[in-house]
Protein backbone atom coordinates (compact mmCIF):
# COMPACT_ATOMS: atom_id res chain seq x y z
CA UNK A 1 0.00 0.00 0.00
CA UNK A 2 2.74 2.46 1.02
CA UNK A 3 5.14 1.55 -1.80
CA UNK A 4 3.24 -0.78 -4.14
CA UNK A 5 0.49 1.66 -5.17
CA UNK A 6 2.90 4.54 -6.00
CA UNK A 7 5.01 2.02 -7.94
CA UNK A 8 1.92 0.83 -9.80
CA UNK A 9 1.02 4.45 -10.62
CA UNK A 10 4.50 5.00 -12.10
CA UNK A 11 4.39 1.79 -14.17
CA UNK A 12 0.87 2.39 -15.53
CA UNK A 13 1.51 6.09 -16.28
CA UNK A 14 4.88 5.25 -17.88
CA UNK A 15 3.32 2.77 -20.29
CA UNK A 16 0.56 5.25 -21.12
CA UNK A 17 3.15 7.98 -21.77
CA UNK A 18 5.25 5.63 -23.90
CA UNK A 19 2.11 5.00 -25.97
CA UNK A 20 1.38 8.73 -26.09
CA UNK A 21 4.87 9.36 -27.50
CA UNK A 22 4.40 6.91 -30.39
CA UNK A 23 0.66 7.21 -31.13
CA UNK A 24 -0.35 10.63 -32.47
CA UNK A 25 -4.09 10.18 -31.86
CA UNK A 26 -6.74 12.46 -30.35
CA UNK A 27 -7.24 10.08 -27.42
CA UNK A 28 -3.54 10.09 -26.50
CA UNK A 29 -3.36 13.88 -26.94
CA UNK A 30 -6.42 14.31 -24.66
CA UNK A 31 -4.71 12.06 -22.10
CA UNK A 32 -1.58 14.24 -22.23
CA UNK A 33 -3.55 17.50 -21.91
CA UNK A 34 -5.49 16.03 -18.96
CA UNK A 35 -2.23 15.05 -17.29
CA UNK A 36 -0.86 18.57 -17.83
CA UNK A 37 -3.88 20.14 -16.11
CA UNK A 38 -3.47 17.66 -13.22
CA UNK A 39 0.32 18.19 -12.89
CA UNK A 40 0.06 21.99 -13.13
CA UNK A 41 -2.53 22.08 -10.33
CA UNK A 42 -0.22 19.92 -8.21
CA UNK A 43 3.02 21.81 -8.87
CA UNK A 44 2.59 24.98 -6.71
CA UNK A 45 2.41 22.78 -3.60
CA UNK A 46 6.00 21.66 -4.24
CA UNK A 47 7.07 25.22 -3.36
CA UNK A 48 5.49 24.80 0.09
CA UNK A 49 7.72 21.75 0.59
CA UNK A 50 10.79 23.75 -0.40
CA UNK A 51 9.79 26.63 1.85
CA UNK A 52 9.21 24.27 4.79
CA UNK A 53 12.56 22.60 4.15
CA UNK A 54 14.63 25.82 4.14
CA UNK A 55 12.72 27.14 7.18
CA UNK A 56 13.21 23.93 9.16
CA UNK A 57 16.93 23.73 8.32
CA UNK A 58 17.53 27.31 9.48
CA UNK A 59 15.27 27.14 12.55
CA UNK A 60 17.05 23.94 13.64
CA UNK A 61 20.40 25.67 13.14
CA UNK A 62 19.29 28.59 15.33
CA UNK A 63 17.83 26.31 18.01
CA UNK A 64 20.99 24.20 18.23
CA UNK A 65 23.27 27.25 18.04
CA UNK A 66 25.17 25.51 15.26
CA UNK A 67 28.29 27.22 13.85
CA UNK A 68 27.35 30.51 12.07
CA UNK A 69 23.74 30.15 13.31
CA UNK A 70 23.34 33.95 13.40
CA UNK A 71 23.29 34.06 9.60
CA UNK A 72 20.21 31.83 9.52
CA UNK A 73 18.26 34.84 10.80
CA UNK A 74 19.42 36.76 7.72
CA UNK A 75 18.22 33.97 5.42
CA UNK A 76 14.82 33.64 7.08
CA UNK A 77 14.14 37.37 7.45
CA UNK A 78 15.21 38.18 3.87
CA UNK A 79 13.17 35.24 2.52
CA UNK A 80 9.89 36.09 4.21
CA UNK A 81 10.37 39.86 3.87
CA UNK A 82 10.95 39.60 0.09
CA UNK A 83 7.92 37.34 -0.28
CA UNK A 84 5.76 39.66 1.87
CA UNK A 85 6.86 42.73 -0.12
CA UNK A 86 5.93 40.89 -3.33
CA UNK A 87 2.47 40.04 -1.98
CA UNK A 88 1.76 43.48 -0.46
CA UNK A 89 3.07 45.84 -3.17
CA UNK A 90 2.80 43.50 -6.15
CA UNK A 91 5.39 42.31 -8.65
CA UNK A 92 5.01 44.96 -11.34
CA UNK A 93 7.80 47.22 -12.64
CA UNK A 94 8.58 50.03 -10.19
CA UNK A 95 7.46 48.09 -7.11
CA UNK A 96 9.79 47.55 -4.09
CA UNK A 97 9.84 43.85 -5.06
CA UNK A 98 11.48 44.68 -8.42
CA UNK A 99 13.76 47.20 -6.69
CA UNK A 100 15.06 44.40 -4.43
CA UNK A 101 15.62 42.21 -7.47
CA UNK A 102 17.46 44.89 -9.45
CA UNK A 103 19.56 46.38 -6.67
CA UNK A 104 20.25 43.46 -4.34
CA UNK A 105 19.52 40.07 -5.89
CA UNK A 106 20.77 40.69 -9.43
CA UNK A 107 24.05 42.48 -8.52
CA UNK A 108 24.84 39.84 -5.89
CA UNK A 109 24.17 36.85 -8.15
CA UNK A 110 26.16 38.43 -11.03
CA UNK A 111 29.07 39.11 -8.63
CA UNK A 112 28.86 35.57 -7.25
CA UNK A 113 29.18 34.13 -10.76
CA UNK A 114 31.94 36.59 -11.68
CA UNK A 115 33.93 35.33 -8.66
CA UNK A 116 34.25 32.08 -10.56
CA UNK A 117 36.45 33.90 -13.11
CA UNK A 118 39.17 34.00 -10.44
CA UNK A 119 38.74 30.44 -9.22
CA UNK A 120 38.51 29.05 -12.73
CA UNK A 121 41.87 30.75 -13.48
CA UNK A 122 43.38 28.99 -10.46
CA UNK A 123 41.98 25.70 -11.76
CA UNK A 124 43.59 26.40 -15.16
CA UNK A 125 46.92 27.05 -13.47
CA UNK A 126 46.67 23.74 -11.60
CA UNK A 127 45.77 21.92 -14.82
CA UNK A 128 48.78 23.44 -16.55
CA UNK A 129 51.01 22.33 -13.69
CA UNK A 130 49.86 18.75 -14.29
CA UNK A 131 52.18 18.86 -17.33
CA UNK A 132 50.56 15.89 -19.06
CA UNK A 133 49.98 16.00 -22.81
CA UNK A 134 46.19 15.79 -22.37
CA UNK A 135 46.12 18.68 -19.87
CA UNK A 136 48.21 20.78 -22.26
CA UNK A 137 45.82 20.06 -25.15
CA UNK A 138 42.91 21.13 -22.93
CA UNK A 139 44.63 24.37 -21.97
CA UNK A 140 45.79 25.21 -25.51
CA UNK A 141 42.25 24.65 -26.84
CA UNK A 142 40.84 26.84 -24.03
CA UNK A 143 43.35 29.64 -24.68
CA UNK A 144 42.66 29.63 -28.44
CA UNK A 145 38.88 29.69 -27.86
CA UNK A 146 39.29 32.57 -25.39
CA UNK A 147 41.63 34.54 -27.68
CA UNK A 148 39.20 33.99 -30.54
CA UNK A 149 36.57 36.00 -28.65
CA UNK A 150 38.64 39.08 -27.73
CA UNK A 151 40.31 41.81 -29.84
CA UNK A 152 43.74 40.74 -28.54
CA UNK A 153 43.35 37.48 -30.44
CA UNK A 154 43.08 39.33 -33.75
CA UNK A 155 46.02 41.54 -32.75
CA UNK A 156 48.21 38.46 -32.19
CA UNK A 157 47.10 36.81 -35.44
CA UNK A 158 44.05 37.47 -37.64
CA UNK A 159 43.72 33.71 -38.09
CA UNK A 160 43.00 33.02 -34.39
CA UNK A 161 39.20 33.71 -34.47
CA UNK A 162 38.79 31.37 -37.47
CA UNK A 163 40.91 28.69 -35.75
CA UNK A 164 38.86 29.08 -32.54
CA UNK A 165 35.68 28.65 -34.55
CA UNK A 166 37.16 25.54 -36.22
CA UNK A 167 37.90 24.05 -32.78
CA UNK A 168 34.28 24.67 -31.78
CA UNK A 169 32.85 23.34 -35.05
CA UNK A 170 34.99 20.22 -35.58
CA UNK A 171 36.82 18.51 -32.65
CA UNK A 172 34.47 20.05 -30.06
CA UNK A 173 31.43 18.93 -32.06
CA UNK A 174 32.85 15.41 -32.39
CA UNK A 175 33.38 15.04 -28.64
CA UNK A 176 30.01 16.62 -27.81
CA UNK A 177 28.27 14.26 -30.24
CA UNK A 178 30.00 11.28 -28.63
CA UNK A 179 28.82 12.48 -25.21
CA UNK A 180 25.36 13.22 -26.58
CA UNK A 181 24.96 9.68 -27.87
CA UNK A 182 26.18 8.24 -24.55
CA UNK A 183 23.85 10.46 -22.54
CA UNK A 184 20.92 9.62 -24.86
CA UNK A 185 21.50 5.87 -24.41
CA UNK A 186 21.89 6.29 -20.63
CA UNK A 187 18.67 8.33 -20.38
CA UNK A 188 16.79 5.71 -22.37
CA UNK A 189 18.16 2.94 -20.13
CA UNK A 190 17.28 4.79 -16.90
CA UNK A 191 13.79 5.67 -18.19
CA UNK A 192 13.27 2.02 -19.10
CA UNK A 193 14.40 0.90 -15.65
CA UNK A 194 11.92 3.30 -14.00
CA UNK A 195 9.17 2.27 -16.39
CA UNK A 196 9.64 -1.43 -15.59
CA UNK A 197 9.87 -0.80 -11.84
CA UNK A 198 13.53 -1.89 -11.57
CA UNK A 199 14.74 1.55 -10.46
CA UNK A 200 12.82 2.55 -7.31
CA UNK A 201 15.18 4.87 -5.45
CA UNK A 202 12.82 7.83 -6.01
CA UNK A 203 10.36 6.14 -3.60
CA UNK A 204 12.85 6.65 -0.78
CA UNK A 205 13.62 4.35 2.13
CA UNK A 206 11.40 3.05 4.91
CA UNK A 207 8.19 1.04 4.59
Amino acid at each position, binding site marked *: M*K*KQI*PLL*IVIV*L*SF*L*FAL*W*AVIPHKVSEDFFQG*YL*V*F*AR*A*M*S*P*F*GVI*LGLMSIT*MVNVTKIKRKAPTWQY*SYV*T*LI*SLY*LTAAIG*FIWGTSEGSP*YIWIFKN*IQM*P*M*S*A*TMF*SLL*AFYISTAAYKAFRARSA*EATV*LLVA*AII*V*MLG*QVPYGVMISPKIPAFAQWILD*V*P*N*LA*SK*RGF*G*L*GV*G*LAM*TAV*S*LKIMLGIERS*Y*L*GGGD
Partner: protein
Amino acid sequence: MFEIISNLIAAFFTLAIFSFLYKDNPMYRLAEQLLVGISVGYGIPLTWQNAFIPFVYQPIFIQHKWYLIIPCLFGLMYVVRFSRSLSWLARYPIAIGMGMTGAGVVLSMNAGVLVQMRSAMQPIDNINMLLIFIGTVTVLLYFYFSKAHTGFYGKITKVGVWFMMIGFGASFGNTVMARISLLIGRIQFLVYDVIMGFIK
Protein backbone atom coordinates in the same frame (compact mmCIF):
# COMPACT_ATOMS: atom_id res chain seq x y z
CA MET B 1 19.27 60.90 -5.19
CA PHE B 2 17.21 57.70 -5.02
CA GLU B 3 19.27 56.25 -7.87
CA ILE B 4 22.53 57.06 -6.07
CA ILE B 5 21.31 55.33 -2.89
CA SER B 6 20.15 52.32 -4.93
CA ASN B 7 23.55 52.13 -6.65
CA LEU B 8 25.38 52.46 -3.33
CA ILE B 9 23.39 49.55 -1.88
CA ALA B 10 24.13 47.43 -4.97
CA ALA B 11 27.81 48.46 -4.77
CA PHE B 12 27.97 47.55 -1.08
CA PHE B 13 26.70 44.01 -1.72
CA THR B 14 28.92 43.66 -4.81
CA LEU B 15 32.00 44.55 -2.73
CA ALA B 16 30.81 42.34 0.13
CA ILE B 17 30.87 39.35 -2.22
CA PHE B 18 34.18 40.37 -3.80
CA SER B 19 35.66 40.50 -0.29
CA PHE B 20 35.69 36.69 -0.36
CA LEU B 21 38.68 36.95 -2.72
CA TYR B 22 40.70 38.12 0.28
CA LYS B 23 39.26 35.55 2.72
CA ASP B 24 36.00 34.31 4.19
CA ASN B 25 34.56 37.12 6.34
CA PRO B 26 31.28 38.17 8.04
CA MET B 27 30.33 40.64 5.29
CA TYR B 28 30.60 37.92 2.65
CA ARG B 29 28.57 35.50 4.75
CA LEU B 30 25.91 38.12 5.32
CA ALA B 31 25.67 38.80 1.57
CA GLU B 32 25.68 35.07 0.79
CA GLN B 33 22.80 34.29 3.16
CA LEU B 34 20.92 37.37 1.97
CA LEU B 35 21.27 36.18 -1.62
CA VAL B 36 19.85 32.75 -0.70
CA GLY B 37 16.95 34.28 1.23
CA ILE B 38 16.05 36.88 -1.38
CA SER B 39 16.34 34.39 -4.27
CA VAL B 40 13.92 31.96 -2.60
CA GLY B 41 11.65 34.76 -1.40
CA TYR B 42 11.57 36.23 -4.90
CA GLY B 43 10.23 32.95 -6.29
CA ILE B 44 7.25 32.71 -3.92
CA PRO B 45 5.08 35.60 -5.26
CA LEU B 46 6.00 34.54 -8.79
CA THR B 47 4.84 30.96 -8.13
CA TRP B 48 1.65 32.33 -6.61
CA GLN B 49 1.04 34.61 -9.59
CA ASN B 50 2.16 32.29 -12.43
CA ALA B 51 1.21 28.86 -11.09
CA PHE B 52 -1.25 28.99 -8.20
CA ILE B 53 -3.63 31.65 -9.56
CA PRO B 54 -3.91 30.38 -13.18
CA PHE B 55 -3.75 26.62 -12.51
CA VAL B 56 -5.43 26.26 -9.11
CA TYR B 57 -7.43 29.31 -7.97
CA GLN B 58 -9.03 30.37 -11.27
CA PRO B 59 -10.02 26.88 -12.51
CA ILE B 60 -11.48 25.82 -9.14
CA PHE B 61 -13.03 28.98 -7.69
CA ILE B 62 -13.93 30.92 -10.84
CA GLN B 63 -14.50 28.22 -13.49
CA HIS B 64 -15.81 25.76 -10.84
CA LYS B 65 -13.75 22.80 -12.09
CA TRP B 66 -14.14 21.07 -8.75
CA TYR B 67 -12.37 17.89 -9.88
CA LEU B 68 -9.08 19.87 -9.69
CA ILE B 69 -9.32 19.59 -5.90
CA ILE B 70 -7.98 16.02 -6.38
CA PRO B 71 -4.56 17.11 -7.76
CA CYS B 72 -4.46 19.79 -5.06
CA LEU B 73 -4.89 17.09 -2.43
CA PHE B 74 -2.08 15.12 -4.10
CA GLY B 75 0.02 18.31 -4.07
CA LEU B 76 -0.65 18.75 -0.35
CA MET B 77 0.76 15.27 0.18
CA TYR B 78 4.20 16.75 -0.56
CA VAL B 79 3.92 18.72 2.66
CA VAL B 80 3.57 15.65 4.91
CA ARG B 81 7.08 14.60 3.83
CA PHE B 82 8.40 15.84 7.18
CA SER B 83 5.98 13.77 9.27
CA ARG B 84 7.46 10.41 10.29
CA SER B 85 4.15 8.58 10.28
CA LEU B 86 2.73 10.15 7.10
CA SER B 87 5.84 10.73 4.98
CA TRP B 88 4.93 7.77 2.75
CA LEU B 89 2.03 9.83 1.36
CA ALA B 90 4.58 12.09 -0.40
CA ARG B 91 5.32 9.13 -2.70
CA TYR B 92 1.99 9.67 -4.49
CA PRO B 93 2.71 13.12 -6.00
CA ILE B 94 6.28 11.97 -6.72
CA ALA B 95 4.91 8.88 -8.50
CA ILE B 96 2.55 11.02 -10.59
CA GLY B 97 5.49 13.18 -11.64
CA MET B 98 7.72 10.17 -12.34
CA GLY B 99 5.03 8.69 -14.58
CA MET B 100 6.24 10.92 -17.38
CA THR B 101 9.49 8.94 -17.66
CA GLY B 102 7.65 6.50 -19.94
CA ALA B 103 7.68 9.22 -22.58
CA GLY B 104 11.40 9.59 -21.88
CA VAL B 105 12.10 6.09 -23.19
CA VAL B 106 10.84 7.05 -26.63
CA LEU B 107 11.77 10.74 -26.64
CA SER B 108 15.34 10.36 -25.35
CA MET B 109 15.93 7.50 -27.79
CA ASN B 110 14.74 9.80 -30.57
CA ALA B 111 16.34 13.12 -29.54
CA GLY B 112 19.41 11.74 -27.80
CA VAL B 113 20.33 8.86 -30.07
CA LEU B 114 18.52 8.75 -33.44
CA VAL B 115 18.74 12.48 -34.22
CA GLN B 116 22.41 12.54 -33.15
CA MET B 117 23.15 9.48 -35.33
CA ARG B 118 21.34 11.04 -38.28
CA SER B 119 23.47 14.19 -37.89
CA ALA B 120 26.62 12.06 -37.63
CA MET B 121 25.87 10.02 -40.76
CA GLN B 122 26.84 12.64 -43.32
CA PRO B 123 28.90 11.99 -46.48
CA ILE B 124 32.59 12.24 -45.62
CA ASP B 125 33.50 14.64 -48.41
CA ASN B 126 36.11 16.77 -46.61
CA ILE B 127 38.71 16.52 -43.88
CA ASN B 128 36.47 18.16 -41.26
CA MET B 129 33.73 15.56 -41.75
CA LEU B 130 36.36 12.82 -41.45
CA LEU B 131 37.65 14.34 -38.19
CA ILE B 132 34.11 14.62 -36.79
CA PHE B 133 33.45 10.97 -37.70
CA ILE B 134 36.73 9.75 -36.14
CA GLY B 135 36.14 11.90 -33.04
CA THR B 136 32.58 10.69 -32.48
CA VAL B 137 33.49 7.01 -32.90
CA THR B 138 36.64 7.15 -30.75
CA VAL B 139 34.88 9.07 -27.94
CA LEU B 140 32.10 6.45 -27.95
CA LEU B 141 34.69 3.64 -27.91
CA TYR B 142 36.39 5.25 -24.91
CA PHE B 143 33.18 4.75 -22.91
CA TYR B 144 32.92 1.08 -23.88
CA PHE B 145 34.33 -0.61 -20.80
CA SER B 146 33.60 -4.25 -21.65
CA LYS B 147 36.96 -4.43 -23.41
CA ALA B 148 40.26 -3.49 -21.74
CA HIS B 149 41.80 -0.28 -23.09
CA THR B 150 45.07 -1.94 -24.11
CA GLY B 151 46.95 -2.57 -27.36
CA PHE B 152 45.49 -1.26 -30.63
CA TYR B 153 42.10 -0.65 -28.97
CA GLY B 154 43.83 1.39 -26.27
CA LYS B 155 45.45 3.57 -28.93
CA ILE B 156 42.07 4.20 -30.55
CA THR B 157 40.51 5.20 -27.23
CA LYS B 158 43.50 7.49 -26.63
CA VAL B 159 42.48 9.41 -29.77
CA GLY B 160 39.02 9.74 -28.18
CA VAL B 161 40.63 11.18 -25.03
CA TRP B 162 42.38 13.85 -27.13
CA PHE B 163 39.11 14.80 -28.80
CA MET B 164 37.46 14.98 -25.38
CA MET B 165 40.26 17.18 -24.04
CA ILE B 166 39.80 19.63 -26.93
CA GLY B 167 36.04 19.61 -26.23
CA PHE B 168 36.62 20.21 -22.51
CA GLY B 169 39.08 22.98 -23.36
CA ALA B 170 36.54 24.68 -25.64
CA SER B 171 33.84 24.45 -22.94
CA PHE B 172 36.33 25.72 -20.36
CA GLY B 173 37.29 28.66 -22.58
CA ASN B 174 33.66 29.58 -23.18
CA THR B 175 32.89 29.35 -19.45
CA VAL B 176 35.87 31.55 -18.55
CA MET B 177 34.80 34.14 -21.12
CA ALA B 178 31.23 34.16 -19.76
CA ARG B 179 32.51 34.70 -16.21
CA ILE B 180 34.98 37.36 -17.33
CA SER B 181 32.21 39.26 -19.11
CA LEU B 182 30.19 39.17 -15.87
CA LEU B 183 33.24 40.44 -14.00
CA ILE B 184 33.69 43.26 -16.53
CA GLY B 185 29.99 44.11 -16.07
CA ARG B 186 30.42 44.39 -12.30
CA ILE B 187 33.60 46.49 -12.60
CA GLN B 188 31.87 48.78 -15.12
CA PHE B 189 28.96 49.15 -12.70
CA LEU B 190 31.29 50.10 -9.85
CA VAL B 191 33.30 52.56 -11.98
CA TYR B 192 30.69 54.19 -14.24
CA ASP B 193 27.44 53.91 -12.26
CA VAL B 194 28.73 54.26 -8.70
CA ILE B 195 31.99 56.25 -8.68
CA MET B 196 31.23 58.44 -11.73
CA GLY B 197 27.59 58.86 -10.62
CA PHE B 198 28.78 59.98 -7.22
CA ILE B 199 31.26 62.48 -8.68
CA LYS B 200 28.60 64.02 -10.94
